[in-house]
């Protein structure tokens, strides 16, 4: 896996708008963003309503994912191109989610919605209505997703990469600064975790930094041992999906998992170790 296998640029997307076999999908944190204007031919997936179980904290199950993609007109053979706001946080999350359910032909628009907007490219409010399909998903791939017990067992053994902001890592904030400060019962980070904020992997326009810059960032600057397995986490698993994408898909590290329970789960667990303070 390398950058050219997983990323496309805005010119590529413009050239493939409406092309059969290419499913363009917008996934946002602000789920109303799509309604205000989106890339022509793009359909919308609501990261919360469509991808999360409505009752318990977990993903929709395999049957639910199949029903969702069938209803949105996505086929097993389609090349799915994902993009979104917030520097592709939720698009990267959806990318990871699609991979989790075995859809391997998936790409991310480099720079996402932000670069598209800053380039003043076309947005439309026309909503496509593709024909329904009969999508078949695979069982979830456990190689991509870390659950809490695995995370606790990884302390001091595997790379733990905390991709939140330095203030969240240190325990001074419980959420990113554009969100109300709530959720986890305690602040701080998982002991032995390295702090590499997701934002360091992105340029100001939302595109990913070069392979050489990314390797320097994680390996040399943060001391992530590329010979070890890695678990990335953040607050709810979306920013860490961005970092999972960098480490697993762009840099090609073999064993990288995303801990989607992340700090909202870990910071509320009774009895687990927590460390406070800035990165050392």
């Amino acid at each position, binding site marked *: 896996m390398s950058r050219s296998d997983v990323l496309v640029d805005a010119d590529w997307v413009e050239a493939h708008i409406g092309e059969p076999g290419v499913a363009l999908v917008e996934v946002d944190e602000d789920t109303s963003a799509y309604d205000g204007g989106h890339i022509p031919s793009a359909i919308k997936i609501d990261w919360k309503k469509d991808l999360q179980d409505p009752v318990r904290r977990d993903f929709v199950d395999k049957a639910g994912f199949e029903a969702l993609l069938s209803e949105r007109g996505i086929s097993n053979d389609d090349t799915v191109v994902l993009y979104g706001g917030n520097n592709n946080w939720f698009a990267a999350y959806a990318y990871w989610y699609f991979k989790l359910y075995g859809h391997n032909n998936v790409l991310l628009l480099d720079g996402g919605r*932000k670069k598209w907007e800053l380039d003043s490219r076309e947005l439309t409010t026309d909503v496509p209505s593709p024909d329904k399909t009969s999508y078949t998903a695979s069982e979830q791939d456990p190689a991509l997703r870390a659950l809490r017990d695995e995370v606790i067992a990884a302390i001091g053994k595997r790379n733990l990469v905390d991709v939140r902001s*330095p*203030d969240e890592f240190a325990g001074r904030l419980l959420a*990113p600064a554009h969100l109300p400060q709530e959720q986890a019962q305690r602040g701080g980070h998982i002991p032995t975790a390295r702090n590499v904020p997701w*934002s360091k992997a992105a340029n*100001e326009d939302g595109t990913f930094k070069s392979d050489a810059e990314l390797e320097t960032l994680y390996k040399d600057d943060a001391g992530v041992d590329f010979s070890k397995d890695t678990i990335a986490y953040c607050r709810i698993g979306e920013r860490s999906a961005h970092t999972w994408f960098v480490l697993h898909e762009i840099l090609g590290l073999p064993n990288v998992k995303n801990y989607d329970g992340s700090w909202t789960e870990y910071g509320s667990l009774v009895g687990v170790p927590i460390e406070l303070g800035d990165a050392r």
Partner: protein
Amino acid sequence: MSTDQSGCGAPAGGVTITKDAAGKEAIVEGHVLRDGVPVGSGYARLLGTGDEFVAEVPLGADGGFRFFAAPGEWTLRVLAPGGVRSECTVSADIGHITTVEVAV
């Protein structure tokens, strides 16, 4: 490319609010305007010391943005189509809304 380093119209002090409105939050909010007209397409970024990225939000249709920051000094940077890039310094305090008007 248009760059405006002095486009920040942060009023001195901002607005002190009751616990009902801001409570324990340190809020930085405001609007981005071009010739007095809201800029509805663009992004506001909150940066810490050394331009360390903290948060980013898309501008609302009214050019508005809001951050729930930690107390302290921050750099507010605005990006908008056409290469617009404007920034200013703002401070945030608990229980206080700092209001910023950014002209681009």
